[in-house]
């Protein structure tokens, strides 16, 4: 099924679009997003991957190589954006795996999807924080991370989920 559909080419195109939009949004709205005390980090690429898992579970016949594409997106993220290889390249596939497990326990719909995405963003930001602390890229305290980064980031990304859930579902259905 996957091989024959438009998704085979459409999925990576939208994946990279989301990846580059993350950077462009951060650049265009840098005053609003990165001025102290808030640091909102856009994770549209994670949204696209998570939605892939959610809508893949919609009809059971559709298996996409999401883990592989997540690793590719993570590798590009690491090399192009941060310059430090080995963080997102593991976190993104982990998120896909986690979402698949969660989606197998709770039937994904809009609200449970929101819950799953909440957990995913927490994992992405939390592991990213731990990794960057371990590599001494940042020296911020854990409490500062929770208040200044994780809170605003969750707020921003959940808002994006609410806004983009139905458009992305439409895109997936169009590509299928």
């Amino acid at each position, binding site marked *: 099924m996957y091989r024959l559909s438009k998704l085979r080419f459409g999925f990576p195109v939208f994946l990279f679009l989301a990846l580059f*939009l993350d950077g462009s949004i*951060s650049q265009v709205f840098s005053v609003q997003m990165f001025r102290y005390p808030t640091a909102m980090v856009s994770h549209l690429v994670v949204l696209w991957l998570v939605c892939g898992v959610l809508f893949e579970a919609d009809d059971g016949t559709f298996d996409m190589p999401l883990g592989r594409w997540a690793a590719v997106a993570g590798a590009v993220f690491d090399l192009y*954006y941060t*310059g430090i*290889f*080995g963080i997102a390249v593991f976190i993104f596939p982990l998120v896909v795996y986690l979402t698949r497990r969660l989606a197998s326990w709770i039937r994904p719909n809009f609200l449970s999807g929101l819950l799953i995405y909440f957990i995913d963003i927490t994992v992405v930001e939390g592991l990213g924080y731990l990794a*960057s602390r371990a590599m001494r890229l940042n020296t911020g305290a854990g409490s500062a991370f929770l208040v*200044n980064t994780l809170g605003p980031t969750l707020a921003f990304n959940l808002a994006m989920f609410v806004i983009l859930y139905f458009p992305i579902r439409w895109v997936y259905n169009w590509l299928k």
Partner: protein
Amino acid sequence: MQKFSLNRRLVIIIVCVIVSFALMTVSVTMRNKKSTPPLIQQFGNDIVGLVDRVVAIPTNGLSGSVSSVSELLNTYQENQQLKKQVSELAQTKVRDQTLAKENKQLKKEMQLNASLTDYTAVSAAVITRTPSSWQSQVVINKGAAAGVKKNMPVMSGSGLIGRVAEVNKTNSKVELITDNNDSSNRFAVQITTKSGKTVNGVLSGYKATTGQITMDNITTKAKLAKGDKVVTSGLGGVTPKGLYVGTVAKATGSDYGLATKLYITPATDLSALNIVTVAVSKQ
């Protein structure tokens, strides 16, 4: 069977964590030691950078047009203020030209080719910003092909904003002063006090709560006052002399009370960057 699969999963997780840490350590070390990333990474980054422009140019253009509409609203007032400044600037510029000419002649006479103040400015547009809260980093559209090298200082508006952290052929990453990692904001700077004394030092960090750059361990008896200008001193490396950093906001005793600690207000807004200038030194 259940137990086996659990064990296998654990092994996979541990292996992944180890590999991840190994890769991170290797890339951080390479970033610190080498002047350019490995060829494959450079090549990949160049291609990704080219593709990114397809997305970045329209979005940046869109934001540019939106902000130009909002700027149109206070154009009249701004214009009046700026006209006054321009007439003053013309005077300064002429004097600057004369001095530069004289400087050149004197250098020629002394057979001095390039001094610490000489640099060429390479202007570049910001393509994108790292979507991460601890890496204040932007990607600019000039790289090794335009003469950019690692560790070169980058300016925007009137002041210093950061340094080049990684150079590819056609794009490079700039680490901003606001980034709080160990190496991003160590610039050698000097302050000329009102009494004419020069104080040398090194920038030591960035205080996010007040938006000020800090400068620690100054052991001088010269009196530093609020408003003293801080410029790069050109000592020790590729940073040319005389790049404007900011003004002194506050001078206090340092953490251990022996030396002076300075807070510096940066000369430019460090969060809104569109066009930056890389100072390519001639030495």
